[in-house]
Structures are given as C-alpha cells and as structure tokens.
C-alpha cells in the first residue's frame, strides 16, 4: 500500500492538497482533500475531507485550532470525491471569509 500526495494550484492564493492511498497501482482511499488559502501571507488549511477514523468526513478548521466535523455518506470513491470537490466549489469563499472573520475577532 502506498500514498501519493501533491498540491493542485488553483490560483496564486488558493490550492488543494490531495493525498490518495494506492494499492497495486489503483486508488483505494481518499487520504486527503484539503482546501488551503493564503491568508495574511501564510497558507492556512480551511476545510479538509478525509477517511481517517474509518469514515469519510469533512472538518472545517478554525484559526484557534478547533474544528467542526461532519460525516459524509458515499457509495464509492468517485461519489465521495465529487461531493468534496462540489462543496469546495460552492463554499470556498464562505470558508475563507469565515476564517478571516474569526482571525479578526
């Protein structure tokens, strides 16, 4: 079993960290899909999807280190991946603004 990790650069200030778990060349698990934004000159993870703890879930990450966890139901890897990427597509600005708002509090 192996892991492959890399960064998908979406803009100069937005990127996705991706990690797939592979076996015999095939992808068997989504290790990580994490949206990161450059905020105040530093890359910050804002939302993370992974299969740690035995289930696929989303963590919304806050500047104080706390996080909000939500399980995501899926029937196969493609559905799980699609759900994660579509949520990021819809919500990325909200995640960033919410994070920035919490920094200012």
């Amino acid at each position, binding site marked *: 079993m192996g892991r492959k990790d890399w960064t998908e650069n979406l*803009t100069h200030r937005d990127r*996705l960290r991706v990690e797939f778990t592979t076996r015999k060349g095939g992808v068997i698990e989504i290790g990580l899909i994490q949206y990161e934004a450059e905020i105040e000159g530093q890359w910050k993870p804002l939302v993370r999807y992974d299969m740690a703890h035995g289930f696929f879930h989303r963590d919304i990450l806050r500047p104080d280190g706390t996080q909000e966890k939500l399980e995501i139901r899926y029937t196969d890897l493609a559905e799980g991946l699609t759900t994660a990427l579509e949520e990021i597509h819809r919500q990325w600005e909200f995640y960033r603004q919410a994070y920035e708002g919490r920094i200012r509090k």
Partner: protein
Amino acid sequence: MTLTREEMFKRNLALTKKRLLRALENPRVLQPIVPGAHVINLPQNDPELLRANLAMAMELAKRGDGRPIVMIPEVTERERWQEFREFIVGKRIVDVIPNEGGTCLDLIFEDETHVQLRALAWTNEEGEEQSFIDWILT
C-alpha cells in the same frame, strides 16, 4: 482581460475534478505526479486560463520552495477513451460488480487490479450514443 480570482479558481477546480475522477478509473493518470509536487493545469481550449496558469507556474518557480512543478495538459474525451483502451488491453476480467443504482461498475482483473467505470459514453460505428456500462454488459 485578466481572470478574476473566482473565475480562475472555478475553471481550475473543474479541470482538477475531471482529472482526479479519471485517476480513480485509470491510476496511470497519477504517474506524472511526483510526490509533493505542485500541479498546474494546462487547459486545451481556454487560452485565458492557460496564460494565467503559466504565470502562476513562473511565480512558483521564482518563489522556489524546492518542490517540483508538474504541468498536466487537459485530456479530451477521445484521448481519455484511448487511454482506457490501452490500460485494459491484455487484461483478463474476472469479475464485474455493478453498484446498487447501476450507474457504476467495478471491473476486477486477474492481476487483482480494478477499474471503476462511471458514465463513460461514446458514439459507436453506427453513430449511436452508447454508455460504457451498456457495452460491458452486452
């Protein structure tokens, strides 16, 4: 015209999504990506995004965090089909497992590799639209 951050984000995310879903069907898609790399999309029919992405690659190269930069061209449906054909040539299928809704198939090969198929459609020699799942089952 310069792309806005929002447009660049959404267009790149669409290309990334397409490629990651392809990687689940055909793991060879991941081969050019070295561990830890910065990946940048090279779109086929979007010169505006292509220019923006090349500028982003140059900026990454200048910033020099030491990680390799890998630029991946967008793959058309025809190339995608060709890629899949090359992958399965010579492989013996030992099992075909449909999901509950019949929208997805797992092909299990004798060498214990497997491929997941979803809504892969093409036009046959008579010009009829067919889905990959129909073709496998007939």
